[in-house]
């Protein structure tokens, strides 16, 4: 605004026909600045002059004098100065004036503009701002204005002249090109990846087709039926349900919290023991079942019956109701037996026996036995019933009295018994109570006690489980076994008090379970196959124990394995060192050769012993270039050249090559090559052909010679007369056309190329899946599918993770490859096999 005012002021004195005045943004008139356009634009922003004016307006009284003075000055000097200024301007542009193009107007104005600044006396010099500001020196805001002006002056910049159009365009283009390059370069990793990819399946951006996963199903599942709803509630609401971010369920965690580590360990041990016993028992049962002796079984049965009888009697005393139940069961059994006519001699077996009974003593006996049995069965029931009823009558009253007392006891007993059976669920309480008693005992003792207790429990439980089939003997035996074990353990414990309990336990159990151990071991080694075998060979009960045992055993195995393979022989020296150890018998022969090859000093010693010398007659005249190069170190030392003991050196060489009778070897080799190159006679004689044949018939040697095809005389060899070379002449001309002459591009060495040829691709040598993999085409396209250009939106989509992969490609090309493969790989049908 100011600027326009000023320019207006100027324009009514001068007409600007030329732009020159504005060049550089300053209006320069005869070396005098009327106004600085750059400044004035700055003024528009900060406007110190405006504030200056305002101040002037605000304080008319104070500054009146100064202003008046200036007015006066203007009034007096204005005329002359103005004229001189005009002259100066007109002199600048004479041409235009002469041409009459410039129209000048000068109008005296009444109001004196504050911008009508004259240079005063010092004509020809610039008007500085500080001169203007000088009048404000006494005002309040002077300092503020000063700082503002200073700031403004600091910022003062002059606009540069615009560039010529072509130049400007060139700059614009180069900048745009730079930006383009940068933008396009984001494709570099993708292009590289695609070029190197083992397989590309087009179109690249395929929609992944997949079946809904269980996870996704679970997320969207809503229970509709009652049953589903119930199950859903159980699965989601209850504390037994699995939780997403936790490994254990709430209930499991609670159980864990209730159990300390020691307890858990001891419980585990206990369980192991239980399982061991169980398996042991099962094995035993199996063995006993196989026993064919009738007598044994009879005795066994009798004892069992006896035991049952006793047990019932016992039960009768303690718990008559239960006894009653048992009796009822027995009755039912009897009834069934009677109904089934099992012992009535009506069966197939019985009839066959009847037939045989006439002649066979045994058969007769068997039949009678059975008859007796049936009679016994029918009679026995009555007797038993009578007994039980009479007894019941007698004891009824007593029992009623006892019952009350017993019931109280029973409750107590039950809890205790329960604890005994399952000491772990309520272990915290019990341990506390027990620990009171056993605080004095050392740890091992405690352990023993515990184990003893457990053994008892084991017995009890096993007794319980074993029903009719289980004989008394078993239990006894088992007890014995367990006691033996525990005795052993005790002994051990006493022996190794210092060692950790756990390890001992394991060791003991591993001893006990020797049989299982082996299977476990095998299983670990062989893997799945043996697992199946183990399943077949052993009953289900034993599986767990074998597992455990296997685990236990594996520690030992590992240790031994470690001993065997602790040292890794990486370098040649290490291997040699290992070979030197005397205990490796198998390697001794190799060792010798290795020693020979690698350890020249040893070789030397041996050779010295042998005292072999080079035959001086056998030699070639060969330039000794290689030998010299091999012994250069001596020659570096100038002074010592004379000192070198040439004899010594010669001896050294002699020693080094003592055994290499190179010359004779070469001669022999050449002779062989010549021999092999000679054409051979072909013997076409067939015994018996045109002659009598058979054993002892000799063919006529004359006839024989007739059938021998004589070879033509050998062609002269190329190396004939050349003693130091063997020229191989048996190259195969027809093969040559099939052989690759030069190493193809892309292969580092001949060996590499040969390797690539040697590896077969076909299904005669590879499995179907391998063949499918080896022969997969580099580019796969489907007929009838439009392949669209790769799209930036898809490739650089955020959040897909593709981008992330791509960033890492420069470092890890393989990863990229894999990624690409996974993206567009088709399924191999042959992979089924």
């Amino acid at each position: 605004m100011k600027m326009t005012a000023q320019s207006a002021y100027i324009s009514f004195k001068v007409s600007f026909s030329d732009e020159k005045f504005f060049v550089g943004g300053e209006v320069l008139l005869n070396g005098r600045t009327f106004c600085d356009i750059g400044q004035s634009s700055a003024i528009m922003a900060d406007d110190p002059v405006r504030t200056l004016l305002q101040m002037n307006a605000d304080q008319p009284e104070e500054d009146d004098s100064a202003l008046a003075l200036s007015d006066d000055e203007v009034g007096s000097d204005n005329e002359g100065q103005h004229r001189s200024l005009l002259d100066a301007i007109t002199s600048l542009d004479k041409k235009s004036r002469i041409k009459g193009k410039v129209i000048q107007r000068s109008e005296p104005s009444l109001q004196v503009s504050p911008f009508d600044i004259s240079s005063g006396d010092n004509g020809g010099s610039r008007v500085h701002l500080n001169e203007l500001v000088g009048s404000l020196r006494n005002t309040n805001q002077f300092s503020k204005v000063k700082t503002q002006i200073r700031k403004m002056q600091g910022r003062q910049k002059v606009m540069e002249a615009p560039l010529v159009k072509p130049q400007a365009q060139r700059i614009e283009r180069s900048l745009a090109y730079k930006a383009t390059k940068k933008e396009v370069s984001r494709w570099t990793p993708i292009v590289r990846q695609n070029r190197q990819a083992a397989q590309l399946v087009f179109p690249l951006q395929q929609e992944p087709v997949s079946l809904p996963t269980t996870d996704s199903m679970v997320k969207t599942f809503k229970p509709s039926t009652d049953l589903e709803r119930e199950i859903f509630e159980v699965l989601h609401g209850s504390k037994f349900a699995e939780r997403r971010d936790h490994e254990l369920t709430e209930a499991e965690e609670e159980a864990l919290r209730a159990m300390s580590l020691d307890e858990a360990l001891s419980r585990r041990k206990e369980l192991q023991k239980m399982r061991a016993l169980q398996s042991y028992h099962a094995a035993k049962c199996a063995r006993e079942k196989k026993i064919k002796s009738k007598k044994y079984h009879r005795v066994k049965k009798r004892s069992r019956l006896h035991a049952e009888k006793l047990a019932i009697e016992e039960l009768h005393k303690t718990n008559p109701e239960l006894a009653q139940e048992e009796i009822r069961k027995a009755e039912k059994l009897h009834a069934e037996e009677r109904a089934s006519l099992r012992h009535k001699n009506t069966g197939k077996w019985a009839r066959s026996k009847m037939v045989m009974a006439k002649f066979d003593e045994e058969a007769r006996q068997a039949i009678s036995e059975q008859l007796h049995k049936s009679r016994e069965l029918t009679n026995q029931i009555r007797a038993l019933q009578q007994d039980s009823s009479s007894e019941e009558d007698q004891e009824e009253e007593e029992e009623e009295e006892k019952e009350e007392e017993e019931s109280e006891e029973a409750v107590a007993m039950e809890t205790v018994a329960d604890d005994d059976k399952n000491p772990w669920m309520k272990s915290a309480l019990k341990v506390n109570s027990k620990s009171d008693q056993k605080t004095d005992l050392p740890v091992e003792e405690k352990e023993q006690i515990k184990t003893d207790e457990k053994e008892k429990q084991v017995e009890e439980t096993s007794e319980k489980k074993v029903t009719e089939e289980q004989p008394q003997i078993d239990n006894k035996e088992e007890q014995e076994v367990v006691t033996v074990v525990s005795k052993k353990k005790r002994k051990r414990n006493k022996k190794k008090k210092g060692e950790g309990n756990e390890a001992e336990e394991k060791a003991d159990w591993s001893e006990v379970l020797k049989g299982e151990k082996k299977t476990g071991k095998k299983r670990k080694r062989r893997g799945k196959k043996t697992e199946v075998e183990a399943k077949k060979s052993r009953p289900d009960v034993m599986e767990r124990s074998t597992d455990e045992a296997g685990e236990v055993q594996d520690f030992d195995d590992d240790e031994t394995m470690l001993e065997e393979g602790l040292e890794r022989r990486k370098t040649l020296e290490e291997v040699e060192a290992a070979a030197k150890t005397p205990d490796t018998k198998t390697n001794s022969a190799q060792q010798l050769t290795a020693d020979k090859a690698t350890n020249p000093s040893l070789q030397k010693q041996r050779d010295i012993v042998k005292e072999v010398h080079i035959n001086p007659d056998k030699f070639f005249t060969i330039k000794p270039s290689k030998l010299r190069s091999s012994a250069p170190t001596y020659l570096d030392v100038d002074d010592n050249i004379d000192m070198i003991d040439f004899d010594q050196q010669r001896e050294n060489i002699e020693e080094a090559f003592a055994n290499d009778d190179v010359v004779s070897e070469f001669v022999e080799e050449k002779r062989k090559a010549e021999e092999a190159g000679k054409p051979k006679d072909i013997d076409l004689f067939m015994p018996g052909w045109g002659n009598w044949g058979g054993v002892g018939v000799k063919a006529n040697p004359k006839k024989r010679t007739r059938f021998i095809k004589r070879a033509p005389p050998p062609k002269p060899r190329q190396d004939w007369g050349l003693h130091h070379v063997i020229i191989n002449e048996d190259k195969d001309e027809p093969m040559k056309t099939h052989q690759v002459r030069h190493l193809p591009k892309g292969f580092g060495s001949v060996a590499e190329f040969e390797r690539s040829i040697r590896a077969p691709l076909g299904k005669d040598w590879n499995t179907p899946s391998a063949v499918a993999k080896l022969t997969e085409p580099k580019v796969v396209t489907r007929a009838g599918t439009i392949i669209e250009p790769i799209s930036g939106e898809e490739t650089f989509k955020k959040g897909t993770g593709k981008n992330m992969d791509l960033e890492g490609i420069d470092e890890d090309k393989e990863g990229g490859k894999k990624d690409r493969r996974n993206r567009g790989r088709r399924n191999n049908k042959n992979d089924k096999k």
Partner: protein
Amino acid sequence: MKIKVLSRNPDDYARETKRDIQRLPRNYDPSLHPFEAAREYTRALNATKLERVFAKPFVGALDGHRDGVNCMAKHPGSLSTLLTGACDGEIKIWNLASRDCRRTIQAHTGFVRGMCVTPDHSNFLSIGDDKTVKMWSLTSPDDGEEEEPVHTILGKNIFTGIDHHWKDPTFATCGQTVDIWDHARAEPLRSFSWGVDSLNCVRFNPIEKHYLASCAADRSIILYDTRGSSPLRKVILNMRSNVIAWNPMEAFVFTVANEDHNLYSFDIRRLTSPFNIHMDHVNAVLDLDYSPTGREFVSGSFDKTIRIFPLDKGRSREVYHTKRMQRVFCIKWSLDNKYILSGSDETNVRIWKAKAAEKIGKLTPREESSQSYNDKLKEKFQHHPQVRRIARHRHVPKEVYHLTRQTRIMKDSKRRKEQNRIRHSKPGSIKKKREREKVVVAEQE
């Protein structure tokens, strides 16, 4: 008496169900399958021979134009649709599956210079020597109705090339300037010019969609950004480039078909020299198109042949020709990567297979696997002289053969001369230039 009978248990060899894989008991013991390399070599040799035997690339011809086919356009959404424009201003729309002409439009007076289908597949644009840009609907008019363009834009100058933006409703034409047009306007949105008066070809980049490239009569290739107001860069080659094509899989790669019988592949980030020179044609290359996989491209030439070049190779892998095919004016690679379409001077549009020996139609899994095995074998033994000899052998027309020999002799003599010059001048005074470095005359900012 003991009788021995041949018997076998069907469990050992029979499938349980029909859908099962045939049981094929195998023993992979390498000692039972000796001479693997030799056997595979024989197989490779046989496969190569068979490939040559079965190499019958010509599928069919579309006959119907009354003048030479000057330009073609693929339909971006339909594989069976092809548009061809002839030198008499006639446009034909073909169905490739049935190989018949669906529509014939007398679109322009004079040549049809270029065509392109809009990305929404509803219309196509054509330009002709009559200084018009016409937009036509792809749906044919009802019976009795005449073919009328949807729009017609009258230009001030002749248009020589047209290409459509890959997504937006804008297209570019070239003539005296490169103009960017909008569907809704009759005036160009923007015009680019850089000191040239005639441009032959303009193409949008299919990946970075706002970039353009054009070839000009002053032997230059010019790059543009439609977002900016000025071109990006100009490269001047030894001779004029006829056509430019962008790689659809690599955003910064384009190839130009040049008058000097070669094709040059450039990286737009480094325009000082092409990264590959593709030689084999013996006359000016008139058109080229990339395969949709971006690994290969096909070129048609004035020497009456079509050649297929791998992008990373300097020589063609295939040459197609027939006795009757004249100068190939336009060529396209179908969008499913299976076929090549060529339009030539003698009014025919021909359909070729992209792989000469490929079997058309569905392959059984066994065929497929044996095919891929054979391909791998050929690749494995490609360096063996016999295999190479057979695989490389092609029959070419007599002129082409002689011209090839002639160009070889010329090239050899040039090389010899250069070598001699180097030999007989002061060492280091003449720098040996690589072939690639000789291509670009100047790169202008």
